[in-house]
């Protein structure tokens, strides 16, 4: 039990450090322009990498996941609120799985 708790603390440490170090120390450095451009592209590169191919295995079947992805994309194109995109996709998948 104690050793399990120490494991949790160890995991907490190796999870926190990569989150903390850049936020504390990169802030003060004057980064070259290409580095700044690189970092400004990170969010979009991360988003795309997170979406694909993970989305395909996010529900029980690839087809329902794909359907949910398409619903989310269409709602996003309509620029509706993010909560609506999320709930719409969930119900889209739910409907798809109930109907097919």
């Amino acid at each position, binding site marked *: 039990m104690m050793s399990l708790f120490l494991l949790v603390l160890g995991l907490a440490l*190796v999870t926190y450090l990569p989150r*903390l170090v850049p936020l504390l120390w990169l*802030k003060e450095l004057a980064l070259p322009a290409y580095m700044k*451009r690189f970092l400004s592209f990170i*969010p979009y590169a991360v988003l795309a990498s997170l979406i694909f191919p993970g989305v395909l295995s996010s529900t029980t079947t690839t087809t329902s996941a794909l359907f949910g992805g398409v619903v989310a994309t269409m709602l996003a194109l309509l620029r509706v609120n993010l909560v609506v995109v999320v709930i719409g*996709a969930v119900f889209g998948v739910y409907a798809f799985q*109930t109907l097919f």
Partner: protein
Amino acid sequence: MATSVQSTSPSSQQSTFRAGLRAGIPVAIGYIPIAIAFGLLAKSFDLPNVITLSMSFFIFAGASQFITVQLLMTGSMYWEIILTTFILNSRHFLMSASLSQRIDTTSRKLLAAIAFGVTDETFSIASTRKEARSGLFVLGLNTIAFLAWNIGTWIGVFLAFGLPGTLQASMGIALYAMFIGLLVPSLTNRPVFVVASFAIVMQAVLHWMITPFFPISDGIRIIIATVVAAGIGAFLFKEGEVS
């Protein structure tokens, strides 16, 4: 732009924090069912409740918590679990690096608090919302995500009920829908479109052409695809920084 936290009035600080809480609602919706599932999984493996709850409280990293429980049950060594977690979560290094350039806040205490809540999901919101230059906004966002994650874990552990099977399966799309909702509106910006396309191509190559022969973990694949795509973007587009 030199508005430090100290110089703004308490009421506007509060409203910035609250705006962050509101912006985090989609994250919370996505987190609760996953956290419930995590609590249930840990429970089904007879992991002590206090360990399950402290994992969500101290670690606060979804995928690696699931993997940790699974590795514990298959009798992995502790150092293997720690190494796996480190590799899986080192992608947050890139996210924090990117955030460090965005956030105006200079208070080291506030930055250290924000760092704890950097996840794929909170980062995605923080880096696509204009208000997120304020540290308090990001703190609010991270706080609601953290609360949702922990409340969900408690529900899974103590109430031991999940959503009905079909709804639970449908909830799996929630966070991906959020990522799509955050990315798609930005695709009208050509550099963003090009960078996102390169990331997807990289992921496809890594996932279907490399991983079958040379196993690469999800965390490493995300890091490689992100670094290559953002690197290409920085190389191709010299001017007109995306915001």
